[in-house]
């Protein structure tokens, strides 16, 4: 902490070196805030160097770049540089970003390194490029987080500014609610209701990990095609490969007149779901989807996952061929070709998406735009 900010000051604040030191030494520590602007420091620099140059009879170039021997007596210890840089940083950005001064660097935020789970969120970035030479390289985080009221040169006993998230957290924790509804525990009541439902429907609490299994058991995420969607733990009658598609087409045609007999599982009656009275368009799943795997912009959740997991792409065939193979993309102006971004293995024999096929054979064009849906 003591050596690092020296470079910060020399590189970012004033490339001419420790010239402000005379001015700094003449100030009291408590009044160092007067030098927070560069103009003040430059004026002080000009005002203090010229007399020095005259007094010491230095050559003209010495004032521009004083030798190290001259600099050292003027800057006897590094922490003084650090104090200047720290004060400037904390004052410039305090309140706007509070402790997150480094968040100003959007490039660093978006860099994969900072998004890696193991990487520290706020890592010091050294930028030797000339374009960033004047950017303040932030000091270590603990120092940066201090407002001038602490051990810094600012006014003493200044209250530390609250961070919004921290303030909200404190508000939630310290809030004392009156005991208006004693003996009520909605969490437990809701859990009891769910458990009662599970007991009534299943007789026991089922294995919840079954929820995660359908996509992994040879299911292709391409619309509600039952043969592919139904996980292995659901017992359904087998159908011929072409039969499903044919039946689906039949369902689509008959949909406006009767409830679809889509389920090959035991029929569950729809309570309160009246049959459509008018000609409802074909199934929303039968939209002209170019791909069954991803046919719209990913959600924020998907985007974040893809960012956070991009460093560990899956092995070539992690869970069986055909489980997550990208489907062929029929030409559609709505969807860009994303095959270049896909690091999943290419399918050996591409099959057209069933939902897309259904859409092509649909008797009534469904104009619901999938891209706008999500």
């Amino acid at each position, binding site marked *: 902490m003591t050596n690092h900010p020296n470079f910060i000051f020399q590189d970012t604040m004033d490339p001419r070196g420790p010239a402000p030191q005379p001015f700094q030494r003449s100030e009291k520590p408590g009044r160092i805030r007067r030098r927070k602007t560069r103009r003040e420091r430059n004026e002080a620099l000009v005002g203090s160097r010229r007399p020095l140059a005259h007094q010491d009879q230095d050559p003209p170039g010495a004032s521009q770049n004083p030798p190290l021997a001259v600099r050292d007596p003027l800057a006897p210890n590094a922490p003084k540089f650090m104090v200047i840089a720290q004060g400037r940083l904390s004052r410039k950005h305090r309140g706007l970003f509070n402790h997150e001064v480094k968040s100003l660097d959007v490039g660093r935020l978006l860099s994969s390194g900072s998004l890696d789970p193991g990487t520290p969120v706020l890592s010091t970035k050294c930028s030797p490029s000339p374009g960033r030479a004047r950017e303040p390289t932030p000091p270590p985080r603990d120092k940066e987080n201090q407002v001038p009221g602490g051990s810094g040169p600012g006014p003493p006993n200044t209250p530390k500014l609250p961070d919004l998230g921290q303030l909200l957290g404190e508000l939630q924790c310290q809030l004392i609610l009156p005991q208006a509804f004693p003996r009520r525990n909605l969490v437990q009541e809701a859990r009891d209701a769910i458990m009662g439902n599970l007991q009534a429907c299943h007789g026991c609490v089922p294995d919840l990990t079954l929820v995660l299994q359908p996509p992994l058991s040879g299911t292709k995420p391409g619309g509600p095609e039952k043969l592919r969607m139904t996980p292995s733990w659901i017992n359904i009658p087998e159908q011929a490969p072409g039969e499903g598609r044919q039946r689906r087409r039949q369902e689509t045609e008959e949909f406006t007149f009767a409830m679809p007999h889509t389920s090959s599982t035991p029929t569950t009656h729809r309570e*309160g779901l009246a049959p459509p009275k008018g000609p409802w368009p074909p199934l929303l799943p039968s939209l002209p989807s170019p791909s069954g795997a991803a046919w719209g912009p990913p959600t924020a959740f998907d985007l974040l996952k893809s960012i956070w997991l991009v460093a560990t792409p899956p092995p070539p065939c992690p869970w069986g061929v055909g489980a997550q193979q990208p489907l062929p993309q029929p030409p559609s102006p709505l969807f860009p070709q994303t095959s270049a971004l896909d690091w999943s293995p290419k399918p050996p024999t591409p099959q057209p998406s069933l939902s897309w096929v259904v859409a092509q054979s649909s008797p009534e064009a469904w104009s619901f735009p999938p891209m706008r849906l999500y």
Partner: protein
Amino acid sequence: MNGRVRPKLASLSDFQFGAVATETIEDVLLHLAQQNEQAVQEAAGRMGSFRETRIVEFVFLLSEQWCLEKSVSYQAVEILERFMVKQAENICRQATTQLREKTEPQNWRALKEQLFNKFILRLVSCVQLASKLSFHYKIISNITVLNFLQALGYIHTKEELLESELDVLKSLNFQINLPTPLAYVEMLLEVLGYNGCSVPATRLHATCLTLLDLVYLLHEPVYESLLRASIENSTPSQLQGEKFVSVKEDFMLLAVGIIAASAFIQNHECWSQVVGHLQSITGIALESIAAFSYAILTHSVGANTPGRQQSVPSHLAARALRATASSNM
């Protein structure tokens, strides 16, 4: 206040699916999708939230006592959260300004105390405002509110009550008709019915309400589980937590997770069909729906299932999430 007969919410038999014209459903679904997309984008810069179990529970129980619809209680929570975030932002801004201008710094803790002192008043104002957005014959009158506050030991006048309402309205720029996940759930159930998904919509709806209550009550733990699942159960960093705020505002994702979990509870067999339809309607990846519904289900059974693993099994989650990542790239 306890011991009295708990008034029931609106009867579930009042709900009827399949009664709305298809064009209306289509328009509403599109509108919800656009609204959701906008909300997700706007949430990217949000720095915090104000959803604690006790507070949400208080709002829910108060709404129950006042015989309000579930949608009103959800909306009251949304209004209260946004109002409190605004208030916290104001405190931060005020403290910063005072420090910059070197005026006599008012301790921000004093501002916080002011907020504390008026919190219950603000809370009931939010519920009252939400009731006014619902049916006119169920609006909570000032007398009812004042009586409730008085029973708790808070003495306020009618003028203070009106001022409190006005404060909330002004703070939120009079935009209090906030969307709730319930609208997404009900609309998706409606579309599921029209699309031929053989689901018992009314039963699903009832379970969805219970699950949605739980997600509201256990908002942070549920989304914490989801965040951990998205990073393969490692410890999330602060930045990842901040980025995840947008996911928390994705009501469409929440709705499909709720419906999928509800379908799993009701019937294993219709579950896969429901999930497939949901994926096709919303475009949300199957793996995301599965991951979210799993997080909801594990928190739903909670302590009632001793020995049950609460976090996503790492090997399953990793595979599912990789699949999602690859399918969305």
